[in-house]
């Protein structure tokens, strides 16, 4: 039985889709069978970030409505054999997603994959709630910025109240993924520090992704950063996050691309 992991945030533009692609790819690079599922109906982008936009034939809604078989809609990644993507519909209305249909698709995916990584749409409406509904684990993507932290708090509340696990009286495992972090600015008091965000949101930290040019470069090229440049700072941060997700104990630090004495200095300050 596979695990369902929702990548969510409330606020848009904080890195949900980038993180879904990177975490999904990183898990697959560790030989896990992974499917990344785009729940952002009408505004699909996971296919684009994953470089599969020209290979989409059927989508999640086609499967939910029975117009296509699951196997027909799944797109196999060309770089990692154990990675698949289930795209969202670009043209259909989000109301076309039914709770029953989603439940059926998720149940079917659980049989074939180790990880079902769901990319949630922004907001707290139906689409976001459907994406998180079946989750066993949740990664809450947060930027060190006031509006993002506030929205994350809201999403954490929803994870604890509206999901299937919450309704069954069980706890959903929530993890904080801090993205676009700049250790130097935090040290200068210009940006919320990791400890500040953790104290406010009080859920365990799964990783700190440093602000990096590599993230945009990878999405420009249609490849998760963990595939495009596995040695880059954000890729190493995603690999660390995935190991923690799998239960390994990995020291928490902010990987850096800076080299030499200058880089060492920043590494020291971030620790």
């Amino acid at each position: 039985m596979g695990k369902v992991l929702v990548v969510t945030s409330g606020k848009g533009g904080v890195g949900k889709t980038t993180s879904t692609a990177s975490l999904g790819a990183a898990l697959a690079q560790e030989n896990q069978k992974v499917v990344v599922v785009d729940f952002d109906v009408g505004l699909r982008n996971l296919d684009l970030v994953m470089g599969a936009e020209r290979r989409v034939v059927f989508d999640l809604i086609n499967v939910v409505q029975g117009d296509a078989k699951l196997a027909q809609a799944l797109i196999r990644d060309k770089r990692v054999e154990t990675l698949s993507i289930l795209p969202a519909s670009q043209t259909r209305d989000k109301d076309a997603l039914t709770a029953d249909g989603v439940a059926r698709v998720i149940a079917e995916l659980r049989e074939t994959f180790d990880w079902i990584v769901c990319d949630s749409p922004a907001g707290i409406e139906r689409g976001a709630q459907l994406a998180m509904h079946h989750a066993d684990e949740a990664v809450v993507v947060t930027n060190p910025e006031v509006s993002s932290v506030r929205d994350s708090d809201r999403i954490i509340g929803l994870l604890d109240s509206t999901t299937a696990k919450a309704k069954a009286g069980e706890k959903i495992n929530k993890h904080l993924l801090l993205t676009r972090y700049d250790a130097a600015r935090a040290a200068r008091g210009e940006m919320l520090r990791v400890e500040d965000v953790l104290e406010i949101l009080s859920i365990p930290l799964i990783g700190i992704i440093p602000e990096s040019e590599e993230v945009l470069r990878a999405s420009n090229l249609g490849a998760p950063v963990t595939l495009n440049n596995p040695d880059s700072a954000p890729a190493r941060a995603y690999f660390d996050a995935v190991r923690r997700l799998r239960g390994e104990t990995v020291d928490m630090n902010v990987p850096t691309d800076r080299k030499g004495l200058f880089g060492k200095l920043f590494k020291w300050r971030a620790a």
Partner: protein
Amino acid sequence: MSFLSQLFARRSSAPVARDRLQILLAHERAHGGPGAEGQSELIAKLREEILDVIARHVPIDRDKVQIKLDRGAAVSTLEIDIEVPELKKKPVLSEAAKPDAAKPADDAKSSAADKTEAAKEA
């Protein structure tokens, strides 16, 4: 303030962000949160009931009511500013009069401010 300390004060915006968030979220967790618009409902209710009480004694224009809310760390204040016309014979109605409340003082109008402590944090 020296140049250095000015520079330092300007740069350390993160602690301000942290404090603002902590206050805001303490309130949102207590009153708002998923499936409950508690805070705004409470304010709407308070406004209606306070207005009803005043309307029993003096005619008031419901469009000329200003409501302000200030959420602090320990105490919140709810300020309801009501324009009460024709109040020459009964000048004292409210417990807290606000002489410099927004509008220029007018013979026919006086304003009553009603401060209510709405919420206390644990």
